[in-house]
């Protein structure tokens, strides 16, 4: 079994001098890019701070880094910070996992039966193009104004695209490979688990990556519609009472969380590619 590790370990092998120079060049280039990336971020915040400090831009409308830090402090002291982060994170992660699982399951069923696939094709196409936010009011009535409704929203947004991408990936498997499995007297479930699943692994990872973004859309949109807590709630609340510090702070925290989730998926991908 391969050990799962989040960070790569370096091998210690003695390579030639040319190789060492080559590797050093690669590493150097990598660090230059990292450095510039960080510099852009720092410059952005510094410029933001300086421009608002000297009154070139009005911090009432666009906030400023120092005011955002103060806002985070306030939220932390009042104990609300982790409540909001936790609520949104919980909704997003549960929505993400459920949507992926349900989408996968539907894709498997549709792969299994060609007849079902052909029957449901038009329904799926219509559901896919329907803007899911239009179902918002219905969801609130059916599931109540709370976390459940938001998770359902999140699932609705992710599930169809998950099914469509995975089904496409399952069906794109080479016919000759399937024939080969059949020549070994493989049963359908064996063809599925030994060929179709591993063959679609790359596409599954891309689906996960898409779903990371989509599930955040789902949970924040859900919170816009109906919520008593969460980052989406903070943004809407901040907007209505003109506390733009709150809006900006929540947005930045969202950026960080979404980035973190993407990073985790990317690590999982790297694990499977090795």
């Amino acid at each position, binding site marked *: 079994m391969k050990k799962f590790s989040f960070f790569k370990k370096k091998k210690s092998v003695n390579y030639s001098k040319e190789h060492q120079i080559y590797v050093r060049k690669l590493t150097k280039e990598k660090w230059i890019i990292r450095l510039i990336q960080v510099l852009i971020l720092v410059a952005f915040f510094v410029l933001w701070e300086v421009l608002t400090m000297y009154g070139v831009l009005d911090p009432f409308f666009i906030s400023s880094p120092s005011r955002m830090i103060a806002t985070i402090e306030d939220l932390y002291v009042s104990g609300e910070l982790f409540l909001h982060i936790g609520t949104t994170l919980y909704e997003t992660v549960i929505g993400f996992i459920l949507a992926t699982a349900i989408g996968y399951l539907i894709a498997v069923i549709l792969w299994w039966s060609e007849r079902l696939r052909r029957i449901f094709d038009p329904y799926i196409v219509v559901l896919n193009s329907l803007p899911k936010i239009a179902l918002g009011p219905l969801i609130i009535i059916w599931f109540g104004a709370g976390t459940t409704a938001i998770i359902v929203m999140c699932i609705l947004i992710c599930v169809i695209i998950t099914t469509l991408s995975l089904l496409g990936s399952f069906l794109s498997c*080479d016919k*000759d490979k399937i*024939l*080969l499995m059949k*020549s*070994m*007297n493989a049963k359908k479930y064996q063809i599925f688990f030994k*060929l179709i699943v*591993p*063959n679609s692994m790359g596409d599954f990872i891309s689906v996960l990556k898409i779903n990371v973004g989509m599930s955040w859309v789902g949970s924040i949109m859900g919170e816009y519609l109906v919520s008593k807590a969460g980052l989406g709630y903070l943004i809407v609340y901040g907007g209505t009472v003109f506390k733009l510090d709150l809006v900006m702070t929540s947005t930045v925290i969202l950026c960080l969380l979404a980035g973190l989730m993407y990073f985790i998926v990317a690590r999982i991908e790297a694990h499977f590619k090795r």
Partner: protein
Amino acid sequence: MESKRKEILKFENVSLTYHTKSDEILALENVNFSVYEGEFVAIVGPSGCGKTTILSLISGILAPSSGKIILDGRDITQKPESAQKRFLKLFKKKPKEKNKQSEIGYMFQRDHLFDWRTIWKNVTLGLEVQGRKNDTETKEKLDNLLNKYGLGPFKNKKPTQLSGGMRQRVALIRTLAINPKILLLDEPFSALDFQTRLSVCDSVSEIIANEQKTAILVTHDIAEATSMADRIIILSSRPGTVKRIVDVNLKHLGPPIVRRESEVARTLFDEIWKDLIVYNTEPSSSKEKTDEKI
């Protein structure tokens, strides 16, 4: 001599018509031939004559419009049971078919090794699927074959680390795990460069001879057919019919690479080449297009 040997495959007046929504095309007409156990038969013919169609018929992907195909004494063209019968069968206790021997092993133009499995896991896929993980005898045989053809050191490597020729050898060894009655080789060398092709031809020919397997090779390369096969079936252009069956019997000369150079093989090559060139003037372009769709 042939009458003594067991007939493993027989085509009896096989015809096939393709139906599309807008057209129907007669692809094969009254094809008759037999393949005997342990024999290496090549099928050559102009492009679009239905060479690959014949393989699809043998493997049961396609059913003939008329005629009979008998594989190892069993008529494989018999219509499958009706849905009603199959449904009723669900309630009957049926004897478990364990270790049912595979009928057909494949080698395609592409090796179709599973990239996520190591070479050894690829080779033993058939055993795994058939629940014969403890079949040490077969495993030993496969291991020996891998070692013999220089693949031993790559057992735990992934297919991406192997060259095209090595991958095709692995693909052949993989089919031997399931011990098929007949091997269908669908232009397995055409994606390889010339040098590799010659050496893979030699290995494949040697493995098949040592394992005493029956093989049918479909190829567009006449030299390949004359150097590897015991008999060559020449098809005419569409609708495909058996134009001629040529006895080759050059096995005594040595491996294919030597047979290729022999005078007999060259004469045969010229003869067959003339056969095909006459027919090449006939097919119209529209016919070739429909073949690609199929």
